[in-house]
């Protein structure tokens, strides 16, 4: 079972697709949930996920607007997808039959 922040971050990485690094992931979470998670927290979570093998990272290209610094981009691994599915399934099963406003519309 993934933690709540872990789920949010994995989902955000999936939404962003290619080039998912700190800033777009932060913006995606902010846009969808209104939560202003700091970039430091996001990288912290991504590191933990990477240690568990749920995401993989590669070093991207430096750009002038970044002051010539590189990006670190993340992608969700197949294991990550499975963990996410398992996690969400667990939630669904637990919520089934309860009126918590989560029923598919």
């Amino acid at each position, binding site marked *: 079972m993934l933690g709540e922040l872990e789920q949010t971050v994995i989902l955000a990485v999936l939404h962003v697709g290619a080039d998912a*690094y*700190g*800033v777009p992931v932060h913006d995606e979470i902010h846009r969808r949930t209104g939560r202003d998670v*700091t*970039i*430091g*927290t996001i*990288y*912290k979570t991504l590191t933990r996920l990477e240690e568990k093998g749920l995401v993989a990272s590669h*070093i991207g290209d*430096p*750009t002038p*607007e*970044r*002051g010539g*610094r*590189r*990006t*670190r981009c993340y992608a969700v691994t197949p294991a990550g997808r499975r963990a996410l599915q398992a996690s969400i399934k667990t939630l669904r099963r637990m919520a089934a039959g309860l009126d918590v406003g989560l029923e598919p519309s």
Partner: protein
Amino acid sequence: MIRACVWLLERLLPADWSDHVIGDLVEQQHRGSWWMLRQTLAALLFLRARPHRGDRMLSTFLNDMRIGARHLRRAPAFAATSVVTLGIAIGASAAIFSVIEPVLLRPLPYPHAERLAFVWERNRDGTFDNIGFETVVDLADNAKSIEHWAAIGSWEPTLGDDTPERVSGDRVSWSYFRTLGVQPAIGRDFLEEEDQQGHNGEVILSHGLWQRRFGSDSSAVGKKISVGGMPMTIVGVMPANFDNVVSPNAEIWRVLGYEPSLPFACRTCHHLRMIARMKPGASMRAAATELDQIHARLEKAYPKEYASVGAGVVPMQEEVTRGFRPALLALAGAVCLVLLIAMANVVNLQLARAVRRRDEFAIRSALGAGRGRMTQQLLAEGLVLALIGGLAGVIVARVALPVLTTYLPPDLPRLGAIHLDAGGFAAVAALVLLLSIVMAVIPGSLAANELGASLRSGRRLASGAQHITRSTLVVAEIALAAMLLAGATLVGRSLERLLGVNAGFETSHLLSLEVDAVGKKYPNAASLYAYHDRVRDAVRGVPGVASVAVTSQLPLGGNMDRFGITDVGNPPSNPEQVPSGDRYTVTQDYLATMKIPLLRGRWFTAAEAVDTMNHVVVVSQSLAQRLWPGQDALGQRIRMGESTRATRTVIGVTGDVKHSGLDANITQGFYVPERQWFFADNAITVVVRTSLEPASVAPAVRRAISAVDPSLPIIRVATMDQLIAKSTAQRRLALVLFAAFAGAAVLLAVAGIYGVLAGSVAERTREIGLRSALGATPREIVALVVRQGARLGIVGLVAGLAGGALLTKYLRTFLYGIGAGDPITLAAVIVALGAVTLAACAVPALRAVRIDPSEALRSE
């Protein structure tokens, strides 16, 4: 902000993180400073603290720190107040330390700098004086403890013919750089045979001058350059890192080329400085004794030539910092006081918080946490707070230091070495550690003492010990604030007095321009006088100019040109005893332009201004009193300089003028028509009385002077108000810093008093309710609160003023016309702190009055 954040992250984040995290922040910098700061702090907090597995103690501690951080997030007001307080105090300390460390503490940047010293002539009153060339040679030749030595005379040549520029330099003995232990980076050092009269056409340039004028072209070495109209060869360029503490502004050097036979090399010609490198193993004290003995022999051999009583040997490090040491130490003291107050305040906040957290600790203790374990938790929390405060402090220091540096006097030695470096960070780190321990241990030990009681009673009361501690801290804060406030008031009142000093002439609407007339067009005195006349005619035609004059030097202009004055009718037996005076060689319109009052006699006429036969002179009042006390100065005959010079008749006496600064106490001076002086000055000051705002007239005057001869450099354009501001800049800086420190201290002290009283009222709700139920009037309840505040205030004030009396002696360099025990200052401090103490009582007192008795009695 972004640069500060990047700088922090680069240093503090692990290497595998910094690059892409910083990149993200740089990319998003348009989101503003606050966003940046928040992201930076979060990144530091989350990405740094990775516990080392296997080290349980450490990982628990890091865990504690994380818990501490979470606690702080839940008490944002407490956290913000503490971080701001700590940040300002740590930042100010680091900034001041970064100035003091290279200037006062770090050894000079020369090999074996501890063997370097200045050698002076020591006067009867213990002051030191410059030294004549013959004395230098005799001392150096006879002293066994001296390895290398050099004499130094100041020199301000004008470089180049096409784009002339005046630079500051030194004429030095050939062994000057050898004595310091440095060598040119390009080319060579001076040679011994070059240090002779008539054979001194070689110059060495500073790295800065070489870059500026020759575009760092290394083929410049060996080329000829026009120096003051004479061709000279560049033989060397000093390295970029040559930090010249002997003359911080010097950019060019040529050999002295003196011989004892020269008239200006005499024993009484006190215009040289001497430096010496002692032999290895020769102690400074032994060298001082030896030079003193040699000097005593010289005094015996030449009794008429020495008024001095010995040689003064001052280690170079001590000499170059002597003028600044008291000021820097006073600032260091002030910043320490601020730091102490900040510490007291944060501890106080912690204590207030500890009262509220008593239950938490009681539960922890009941669950089996030992005292050590809980102290560890508090230490971790203190460390988190101190670390964040330290980071804020580093940012404060990074912002404050460049601002501070621009206000430092430009002749401060080692100015270039001032920046925030390892030393500054070590200071910050030490402070952080100290603060975190203090912040943990004091509240911790108090809280631990009464754990059991808390759970049983369930009441949130501060203990007696806590009350005493908090009150003591507040008293200390008030005392420290009183000391700073007294210091700031004294410095402020001194500055006010100084600016109120009568300079001896009308300072408003006065503009001055310095011109250096050199080159082939000015081969003799006549051509210079003609140039001065053309300049005066040209400036007189500029709209807004009321009158204009030419003078050899200007009061408060920073020049120094004094001549010995011999009373021809009554010459002193020892030539060393002749008084000296500032020489003003001026055009006829000078007195009227400066508006210097004429006290007796008359000023010279237009006819006398061009009369080269009958020499006249006008003297200042203090010079007249010095030469002829109780007698009439008019008609007396005096001579300036050597015995071959013309004798002059005194025709008038003017008011005194402050020449070297508003705080000058020597005001002897004399005025001579420029065509009557025995040489014509190349460097002159054009002084202009304006009817309009002088700064607005300046560009037109400048153009008018340039039009007369565009090839001459105008060295400086300044209004008299600017010159006065410059001469008081150091005092202003001290005032601004002291005022800022005192303001911060008073604010913190007010916050401290308020905190104690508010806490006390909250705890005594029941008691106060009971009192008013029993018939106490609102007035009596207000008195109850105010009495408590006033007690803190009075004890603090008394302690502070007593402490201040001990400390203000370190402020003496900043004081002018005022004693450290100035009664008005004392009164001002008492009134100001009394008022803010009462103000701090107001809110708690009102809250106490508003307590509803019935509710208060029911509440517990």
